């Protein structure tokens, strides 16, 4: 494990630390909300450790607090967590084949996925994924414990804008990569689909429907000039570059662009 921490650039370490602090703040409001709904104090931290997926926990606790049954709560929360299946597919190379993959899988969440994707090399991606995963594994349950202890003392988290913290954390981590990729179209289309679907489908389904944006990749495209891949191109066999919207080499290099969230602190003049 020590080699993983040595691989991390200091900017990534800083991002992970601050991200974990932000996650802890959200967790404080989660813990406080849960105990004020009448749950025993030990329950929210337990859920935080064994599920380790914030938005689904909010929903699980929220459905029960609103008088819903356990079955409905589990189902709703599992629908929210269904996105971890495609996350698992995208993170497969980063979590590897060793025994550590069984822990790595548990550390998979929005934050660790976005940190892992945003690195220039696979080695750094793996290190950032683990660092962010461990950061959330510590900060989410710890913040929940603090929230449980504070209970009603902290009052309404909306007053200090805490409800904006989670989407802002994701924005801070994913948007710089979008700019570097110059591939805004599909994520924007996906977001529009998700927002449009929100009033008519259950919680958690809209992001899954956003994946319909991928169908655009199957449309016939006019040919574009290719750019050479930078990092992972050598690893990947380019079977049929024109069968998708762009060549896989280009996609891989864009995904691993050196100009990403991890360099946000130092300023990036690459792109």
């Amino acid at each position, binding site marked *: 494990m020590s080699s993983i921490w040595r691989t991390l650039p200091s900017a990534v370490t800083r991002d992970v630390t601050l991200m974990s602090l932000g996650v802890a703040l959200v967790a404080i409001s989660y813990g406080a909300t849960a105990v004020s709904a009448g749950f025993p104090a030990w329950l929210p931290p337990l859920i935080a450790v064994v599920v380790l997926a914030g938005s689904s926990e909010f929903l699980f606790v929220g459905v029960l607090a609103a008088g819903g049954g356990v079955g409905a709560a589990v189902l709703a929360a599992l629908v929210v967590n269904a996105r971890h299946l495609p996350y698992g597919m995208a993170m497969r190379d980063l979590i590897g084949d060793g025994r550590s993959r069984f822990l790595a899988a548990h550390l998979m969440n929005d934050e660790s996925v976005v940190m892992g994707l945003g690195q220039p090399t696979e080695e750094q991606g793996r290190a950032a994924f683990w660092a962010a995963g461990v950061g959330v594994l510590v900060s989410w349950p710890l913040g929940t414990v603090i929230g449980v202890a504070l209970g009603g003392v902290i009052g309404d988290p909306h007053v200090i804008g805490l409800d904006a*913290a989670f989407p802002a954390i994701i924005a801070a981590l994913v948007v710089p990569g979008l700019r570097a990729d110059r591939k805004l179209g599909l994520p924007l289309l996906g977001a529009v689909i998700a927002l449009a679907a929100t009033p008519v489908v259950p919680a958690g389904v809209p992001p899954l429907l956003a994946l319909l944006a991928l169908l655009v990749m199957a449309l016939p495209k006019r040919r574009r000039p290719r750019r050479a891949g930078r990092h992972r191109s050598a690893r990947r066999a380019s079977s049929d570059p024109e069968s998708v919207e762009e060549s896989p080499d280009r996609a891989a290099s864009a995904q691993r662009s050196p100009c990403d969230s991890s360099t946000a602190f130092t300023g990036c003049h690459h792109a």
Partner: protein
Amino acid sequence: MPDLPSTTTILVGVALLAVGTYVFRIGGAALRARFAGSAGMDSVVDRAAVILLVAVMATTGFTEGDGVAGIARPAAVGVACLLAWQRCPFVIVVLAATATAAVLRALGVV
């Protein structure tokens, strides 16, 4: 406040949720291993992860329940996106977003 189910029932639910979520996580990786080496597949799943993240950000930032999440939070997330696009440091992006929402609410904008 409605009565909560018994603690045992809740714990069974927590166990099901934990196992189900873990199966999604490890199952995705295992599924991908089946298709290892397909370059088109690599491109699609990397894109899928980014699309999911942006959609999660949009839905948690702009909606609450079935409707729009008022004005303060969407405005805050808009500020976060703008600052992140300008490559502002992580802490600035998150603090500016929460401060935007807090200030707007202090001014009576929900």
